């Protein structure tokens, strides 16, 4: 019945099937919105955060999700600036994913602050010293860029194309895509960095505090690099997932592999710098601030293992992705991409959660924190919204341009 909306030459499953697929996600979204509503109406006492654990699940997820969303800007950068033409196959998907990640992050931040009504103060009375100001500005700007990049995808819809003015508009927009890619890249570099800076500048938290390079702590650059490295991996992962779920071939394997290669190279670079940074931090920064590196890992469950886990999660995928033979095998490629994503998650987890759990005062205690169901629910809402947006985009817009020529196997799921 909605055939006239579905892009020409592409087959999609029946409406019923589609709705069946949407139902659970919609339910999840509803539940999430309810718990988010509780936090907004009754206040943040609904969460398990406290004066010591001022940041919790939400900030950790924001950092992770935005790192994963980095695929959007970095693919754009590779495609439009470095002219890696074959990436045209995934760029739309990358944009949609980016939109989901960033939109979700912003939404969660809106719930996370105690006085959302005053959120705009940051733009009106910005404190230029604050990393959070940088983050807020860049992310909100980049979100607009993503929206603008999303518009052409929407306008390409079969039905909408019938409106000439839209067609013209879309065409004009498309000419500017290089500008947006450039701007987007610039902004993203900044906010990925300032997200790292967010914790790197915390002089009061030696576990997170890092030496400064120029005006930014080293985490600033490490975050840019890790995000850029993991972004492509996440694209690989998601594309593969979509292929599995929709039982279709959407992109040429070569594309995923080259993405994997890029990811691998960047991981190598990141790993190197991360090692150097860790050594400097343990041997120079920490002693300077009067702490003993041993203290950081004296508290179970965050023993020394977590540091090695963090590194391992980057090392293994790096090896696999830089090894053409392994990379060529989908199984290896995907698991490597998955590991890389876990690696970045662990890294963000350590910087946010472990930092706050560790005591700074000698008579203070180590803290434990488990998110409340309201917190978890709010996060699930983001996840569900993401899946829904992506599903619709996949069904009604051309997310994978190569899908048509890769031939139409009979469609199943969305």
């Amino acid at each position, binding site marked *: 019945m909605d055939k006239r909306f579905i892009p020409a030459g592409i087959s999609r499953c029946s409406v019923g099937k589609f709705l069946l697929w949407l139902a659970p996600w919609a339910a999840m979204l509803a539940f999430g919105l309810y718990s988010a509503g509780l936090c907004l109406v009754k206040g943040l006492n609904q969460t398990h955060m406290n004066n010591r654990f001022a940041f919790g699940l939400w900030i950790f997820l924001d950092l992770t999700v935005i790192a994963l969303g980095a695929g959007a800007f970095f693919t754009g950068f590779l495609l439009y600036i470095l002219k890696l033409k074959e990436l045209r196959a995934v760029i739309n998907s990358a944009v949609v994913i980016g939109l989901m990640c960033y939109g979700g992050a912003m939404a969660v931040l809106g719930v996370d602050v105690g006085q959302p009504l005053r959120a705009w103060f940051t733009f009106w009375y910005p404190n230029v010293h604050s990393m959070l100001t940088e983050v807020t500005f860049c992310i909100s700007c980049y979100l607009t860029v993503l929206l603008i990049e999303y518009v052409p995808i929407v306008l390409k819809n079969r039905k909408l194309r019938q409106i000439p003015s839209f067609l013209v508009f879309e065409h004009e927009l498309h000419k500017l895509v290089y500008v947006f890619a450039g701007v987007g890249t610039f902004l993203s570099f900044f906010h990925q960095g300032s997200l790292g800076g967010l914790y790197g500048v915390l002089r009061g938290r030696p576990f997170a505090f890092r030496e400064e390079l120029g005006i930014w702590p080293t985490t600033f650059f490490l975050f840019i690099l890790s995000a850029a490295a993991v972004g492509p991996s996440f694209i690989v992962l998601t594309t593969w997932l979509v292929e599995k779920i929709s039982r279709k071939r959407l992109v040429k394997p070569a594309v995923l592999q080259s993405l994997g290669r890029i990811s691998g190279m960047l991981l190598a670079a990141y790993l190197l710098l991360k090692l150097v940074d860790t050594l400097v931090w343990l041997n120079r920064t920490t002693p300077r601030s*009067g702490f003993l590196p041993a203290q950081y890992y004296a508290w179970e469950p965050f023993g020394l293992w977590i540091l090695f886990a963090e590194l391992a999660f980057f090392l293994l995928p790096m090896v696999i992705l830089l090894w053409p033979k392994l990379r060529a095998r989908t199984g290896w490629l995907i698991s490597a991409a998955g590991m890389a994503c876990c690696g970045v998650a662990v890294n963000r987890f350590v910087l946010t959660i472990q930092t706050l759990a560790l005591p700074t005062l000698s008579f203070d205690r180590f803290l434990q924190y488990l998110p409340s169901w309201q917190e978890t629910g709010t996060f699930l809402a983001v996840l569900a919204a993401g899946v829904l947006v992506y599903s619709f985009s996949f069904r009604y817009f051309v997310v994978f341009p190569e899908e048509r020529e890769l031939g139409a196997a009979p469609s199943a799921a969305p």
Partner: protein
Amino acid sequence: MISEKKPGKICRYGMAIDIDKCTGCGACMIACAVENNVPPGNPGATDLTGITWLRVFKVDNGEEYPRKESVYFPMMCQQCGMETPCYLVCPQQAVDVDPATGIVFQMPERCLGCRYCMAACPYHSRYFNWWDPKWPAGMEKTLNPDVAPRMRGVVEKCNYCHGRWHAARQRAAEAGLKDIIPGDYVPACVEACPAGAIQFGDLNDPASAPAKAAGDPESFRLLVSLGTEPKVYYHSKKEWARRIGDPSRAPAPKEPSRG
């Protein structure tokens, strides 16, 4: 700091606290809450979600009886004078440092409750309003008009009873003076301490108690190694107690212990 224009008299208010005198009676904590319109704890509040601008901890030397020794340890905002962490991180200038007094101040009406400053503070002396402030019926009559009550979802902290500073300035103006009459401005905790353990004064004035403490070998500050130049000096004759301020002191006991 909005402008760098310097006021008439520059003060650097600080405190000198003799922890050997402190008996942990808690009068300072109550006086603080009364003075600054801090509401009684919500039924759900714990020592991690409550609001105590000034909090007295019990710290021991980690030994067992009979060698065990304990001190009571009042902690308020340490009023960092350098690289003030909270001031630097606040995204919308809700934290301010007054160049005229050196007081670090939170503006609840400007705060959006992102709690970045709380993550930044090594002393955990910033508190978030997890609940709507609630006073038992009639008790709001006892609120102090010199301090504005806060609303849910914002951060607040000790500001050396800034309301009293305003009042003192007004009294000075009454007397035709532009600067506060020395000794006329004293925070509530200092006034309330029955043991006289807390002293308050201007670090720029060599005769003041904090200034003297600054030069005293038996005095110490918390986490000086972080380089935030806290303006609260503690004093103790006990050697182990002086190492409370040193982060590399043996980690706290694994078993939960109150205080």
